């Protein structure tokens, strides 16, 4: 039973990271129907920036939580800047192009950013410091859930609540929802659609950066390639939950995390990725619109 709980919490932790990244996919897809393949790279850049900032700060004598906060904030700032630039350079000129063009552009961007980090930094795995401290009050239950897991779960929860509030109640949130439903109509009623799209990319990037910092410090290493795998998994989560749906992305992330965790714990950890994709294929066949997605009819 204890093993089960351990796997469950492990899956939940992993799943909440997937959910953070999946939100970026789902929000972008909801608005411009594009799989932003480079989203995983934004997450990786977030983690990398955090790594660099941590390294510099440690060497110059900073300590503990202050490093975590500064590194986290800078990671978010940089991820947002990259996300914003990415949209402006690689997607905006293709707004009216055939469907395949932006998709290929996104793949090109993903390859570009991976290799950019590889060339600018290193192809090796780098050790990432454990930024999350061990809390004392966690000690009695530390054998089931550690402090890092708790921090990840709480941070994800808080982020989700903030995002929900943003989408539901703010002006930009309303503009985002309007653009998602009908872009040309939104433009007619005076919404600056380009700005809404940029904002969507920025928000998605911020979420990815949070995920990047959390997971890097949890797993303890970064590398130029981490974004690719995480990106594919997160996209799987987004599709699982129903792409375009914000609660769907969260649910999909959790389901995927739990599936992987249990499959790895009870069957075999070698085939973790196989289970994830098996699940994706199964969902797409049985319920292509995802768990929470609505089946949409294409207008003819």
């Amino acid at each position, binding site marked *: 039973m204890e093993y089960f709980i351990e796997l469950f919490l492990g899956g939940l932790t992993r799943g909440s990271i997937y959910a953070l990244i999946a939100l970026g996919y789902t929000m972008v897809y909801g608005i411009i129907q594009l799989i932003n393949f480079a989203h995983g790279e934004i997450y990786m850049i977030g983690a990398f920036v955090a790594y660099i900032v941590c390294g*510099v700060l440690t060497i110059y004598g900073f300590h503990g939580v202050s490093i975590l906060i500064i590194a986290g904030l800078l990671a978010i700032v940089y991820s947002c800047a990259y996300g914003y630039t990415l949209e402006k350079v690689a997607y905006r000129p293709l707004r009216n192009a055939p469907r395949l063009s932006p998709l290929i552009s996104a793949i090109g961007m993903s390859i570009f950013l991976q290799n950019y980090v590889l060339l600018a930094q290193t192809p090796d795995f780098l050790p990432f410091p454990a930024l999350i401290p061990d809390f004392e009050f966690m000690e009695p239950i530390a054998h089931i859930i550690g402090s890092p897991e708790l921090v990840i779960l709480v941070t994800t929860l808080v982020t989700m609540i903030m995002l929900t509030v943003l989408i539901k109640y703010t002006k930009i949130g309303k503009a985002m929802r309007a653009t998602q439903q009908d872009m040309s109509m939104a433009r007619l009623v005076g919404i600056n659609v380009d700005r809404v799209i940029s904002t969507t990319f920025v928000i998605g990037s911020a979420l990815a950066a949070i995920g990047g910092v959390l997971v890097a410090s949890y797993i303890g290493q970064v590398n130029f390639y981490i974004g690719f795998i995480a990106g594919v998994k997160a996209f799987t989560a987004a599709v699982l939950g129903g792409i375009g749906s914000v609660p769907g992305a969260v649910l999909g992330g959790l389901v995927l995390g739990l599936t992987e965790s249990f499959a790895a714990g009870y069957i075999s950890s070698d085939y973790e990725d196989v289970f994830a994709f098996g699940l994706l294929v199964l969902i797409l066949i049985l319920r292509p619109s995802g768990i929470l997605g609505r089946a949409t009819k294409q207008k003819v």
Partner: protein
Amino acid sequence: MKNIKQSLAVSLWFIFLTFPLMVVKVNTSDQLVQWRWMNILWIGLATFVLSFVWRYALARKEARQMAAQSGQDEQDKPSRIQALLEDQSLRYKAMIALLIFALAFPWVFDTYQSTIMISALIYVVLGLGLNITVGLAGLLDLGYVAFFAVGAYSYALLNHHFGLGFWTILPVGGILSCLFGVILGFPILRLRGDYLAIVTLGFGMIIKVVLENWSDFSFGPSGIANIDKPGLFGLKMDIAASTTYIYYIMIGLVVLTIIVTARLKNSRIGRAWIALREDEIACVAMGIDMARTKLSAYALGAFWAGMVGVMFAAKTTFINPASFTFMESAIILSIVVLGGMGSILGVILGAMILILLPEYLRAFSEYRMIIFGAAMVVMMIFRPQGIISNVRQKYEFKGLKEKSENV
């Protein structure tokens, strides 16, 4: 003046953007920070210049689109190269010259050059195969390398366990990977295009994971060595001779692929693929069975990857899962995209450029992938039709009202 200000802003923005990754390098084990200030200068200069080029190119593209809307489409006027390509007699002459060059190649250059040429030809076939799926039918396949792996492993395993020869397995490998394509394609081809991309990507990764972990079947990450080279009536060949032999087999395979794809492109099936790419709803409304058409494009693309996979295993005599990563799929895709989706000549050129250039310009090879990535983006924005755009066949109408008697 306004332009300079704008470019300055762009360059400052990129300096900010690239600062942590390009300038700072941390060595945590030695507790050292390396500041590479010079990079700021390079980034600043490069982005300053590039932003001018970028804006100019965007403006030109827009102007062209405006012209197209008002009915004067400059883009569709055949370029000079395109006009040359359509000149039939010249085309035959060029083809014959090219064939002679290709046949003479191993006698003019040494074995090392032939080996490089063989890998380039392998990518030509891969590119042409993927061109069927992506270029003609518009199905974005990001796990194409999986079919390549199926072919390579079917030869390696059947050769290892049963001693079956190259010529027996060459078609078998193709058919096996075709079958894989059908089995995988059946459930997923109903999906919208972008889902298809992600599922094929996943499939590519699954194949690699399975090959790495199922050691009883695939010998795991250590791979399979001592695969037989192709035989010629039991003749003993030294390395040079066998390389030349493989080279000629590859030429044969390339020619076969070209003929088959060229014929398909302008056939009933090929037209259905293109129609599917252009507009799915109109396509089914015109009586085309979508599932069957998609499946045939997907499986036929897989077929070529399987064949050339057998070839690859026979050429290297050693394979392991590391040869079948997503990077390979990405390279093949960039060949198709950069060369020109749907265009046979474009894909061949694309493969030659993308594979041979890094071989001969060693300094360039380190930057290969970053350039491919950037080129994919730039191509999509400024020249989505690729280096050589796909030209549709023109028809004459003998015995009908309008007679145009040429060729």
